[in-house]
């Protein structure tokens, strides 16, 4: 698999530079979690149609996870970054895996334009939450529905170029930039959203593993794996960003994986998945952060006379987040709205979700190493797919997580 080969190459390059310890920066954390769940549905993580990462059979003390960011310079202007995760949950395929691995070339700026090129496996620039080590949200334990999905399905292997005009050198208070990416090896993107709907958690799909398939035909396809290039057609994204006073960000992105829905793959078929995403983050001087993100798109699969796909679903979601940081304390509240509706082929498979979620999180950063956090999450709404297996579509799921985290 070429996908794996590229990842290995980048990992090897990063490891080679790790020999020169002074040039590698390591950051990571290890979690111990306590989880309480109030939901009758098995979690999607265990093959169910619950939208929480834990369920009745998987609560109590969880071993949590280990996340490591390794960032090293290969040459003066080329750096390699690899994010490794280790999870001890029983549904993971690989105990240790990689979520992001890329090379980044930053030539020295010769003018107010700053260029950056990334090559490898990384997330398109959608999330305004996932700014922490290991692409974790810094505001809560669980990411919003939009950014959870980015972590689940939307990472790609490709090339991204961005250019930013830095205002500070021009006596301006704002930076403006544009980004464009081409990528492949993620043709099944959309299948999980179509089958299971939006969810909220912090489990980015690893590169060599997959996510449990909600609806499966046999025991051979328990996992959806994303490393496949099925149709040979690269996808693209393009976007613009403005940053004011280095604090307030506005970001718009158009994404189209250009998949050919008529092409069948070994385990999964090629999906045509497109979306537009917009997001804004405001950091007020009083340590109050406000984030709003919205996304709208469609996904399609299967041969059809017009080539648009046999099954098509439209999806959209948005969230509002407010986070207040005071010394060692951070309090965050977030409201998510999620919607999916089949617009073609509903008689074959009806994808339909109408749900909302409330997240309330508090964290206490004792020092540079120790952090304690608690998060309450409630997802309420309908998922029509549940009716396919004889369950009511409506459900209210609640989850309480307590985390003790050691960072280094």
């Amino acid at each position, binding site marked *: 698999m070429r996908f794996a080969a590229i990842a290995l190459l980048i990992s090897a390059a990063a490891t080679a530079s790790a020999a020169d310890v002074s040039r590698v920066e390591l950051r990571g954390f290890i979690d111990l979690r306590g989880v309480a769940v109030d939901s009758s549905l098995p979690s999607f993580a265990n093959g169910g149609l619950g939208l929480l990462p834990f369920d009745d059979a998987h609560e109590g003390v969880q071993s949590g996870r280990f996340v490591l960011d390794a960032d090293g310079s290969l040459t*003066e202007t080329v750096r390699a970054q690899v994010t490794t995760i280790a999870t001890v949950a029983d549904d993971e395929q690989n105990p240790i895996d990689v979520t992001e691995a890329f090379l980044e070339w930053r030539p020295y700026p010769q003018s107010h334009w700053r260029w950056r090129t990334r090559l490898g496996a990384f997330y398109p620039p959608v999330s305004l939450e996932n*700014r922490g080590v290991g692409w974790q949200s810094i505001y809560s334990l669980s990411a919003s529905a939009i950014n959870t999905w980015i972590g689940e399905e939307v990472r790609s292997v490709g090339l991204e170029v961005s250019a930013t005009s*830095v205002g500070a050198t021009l*006596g301006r208070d704002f930076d403006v930039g544009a980004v464009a990416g081409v990528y492949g090896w993620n043709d099944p993107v959309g299948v999980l959203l179509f089958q299971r709907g939006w969810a909220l958690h912090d489990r980015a799909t690893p590169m060599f593993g997959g996510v449990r398939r909600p609806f499966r035909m046999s025991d051979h396809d328990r996992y959806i794996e994303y490393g496949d290039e099925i149709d040979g057609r690269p996808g693209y994204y393009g976007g613009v960003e403005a940053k004011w006073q*280095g604090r307030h960000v506005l970001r718009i992105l158009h994404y189209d994986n250009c998949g050919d829905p008529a092409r069948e793959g070994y385990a999964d078929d090629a999906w045509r998945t497109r979306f537009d995403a917009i997001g804004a983050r405001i950091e007020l001087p009083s340590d109050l952060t406000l984030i709003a993100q919205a996304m709208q798109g469609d996904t399609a699969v299967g041969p059809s006379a017009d080539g648009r796909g046999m099954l098509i679903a439209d999806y959209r979601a948005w969230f509002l987040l407010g986070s207040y940081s005071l010394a060692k304390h951070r309090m965050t509240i977030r409201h998510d709205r999620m919607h999916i509706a089949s617009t073609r082929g509903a008689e074959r498979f009806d994808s339909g979700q109408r749900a909302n979620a409330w997240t309330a999180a508090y964290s206490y950063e004792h020092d540079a190493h120790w952090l304690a956090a608690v998060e309450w999450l409630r997802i309420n709404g309908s998922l029509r797919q549940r009716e396919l297996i004889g369950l009511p579509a409506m459900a209210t799921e609640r989850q309480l997580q307590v985390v003790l985290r050691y960072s280094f």
Partner: protein
Amino acid sequence: MRPRSALDMTEATIRNRAALRAVGTVMAFAVASAHGAVLSVSVLDGRNQPVADAVVTVTASSATPLQAPITTPQVMDQLNLAFVPGVLVVRAGTAVVFPNSDTVAHQVYSFSPTKRFELGLYRGHPHQPVVFDHPGVVVLGCNIHDNMVGYIFVTDAKYFGKSDQDGMWRDDVVPAAHYEVAVWSARLSGKMEAVRTRVYVQDTPLALELHLPEPLRAAVTQERNPRVRYY
């Protein structure tokens, strides 16, 4: 209302009404320095609020020989993903050393016409000092951390400094003469041109108020947590 610009001010002359403070001063000093006064400059924005970290330079109107550069290197540190100080003012010819007090590596550069340079990726021990020969503004960046911005103001003025938190700068020993006083701030917008005025210093303390034109930009120094990605 347009703020009162320093450019609107004509030459300010203050008569000597105070007794000479330096009565006991040894007269062997140059005659020009026998008379002089405290010169203080208050830097304000358009709403009369003090502007800290503004660069004040005082240049004698008559031709004066070039000032000797300061021989000890000046320091532009990097701490908590910010340049410290955010604005450094040095005399032309001064060497500046760029230590890195962070645990992460930095890569400092400038493409400003005043001084172009690049300091390759480093941590801890600094590179050789950089000598700033020509007057002007040098904008500093870090090629790793996009939010890092710093400024070095290079001047050949005899008297210079930065305004404090109250927007004040003062010099105790300005000899009697005609001077040009210029104020520059990293918060200026557009072409970021200094505000200038001419003054005549005699023997009385001279207090100037200079207003920077609005809109002023946000303050430059923004510390960052290295564990939080800048996007």
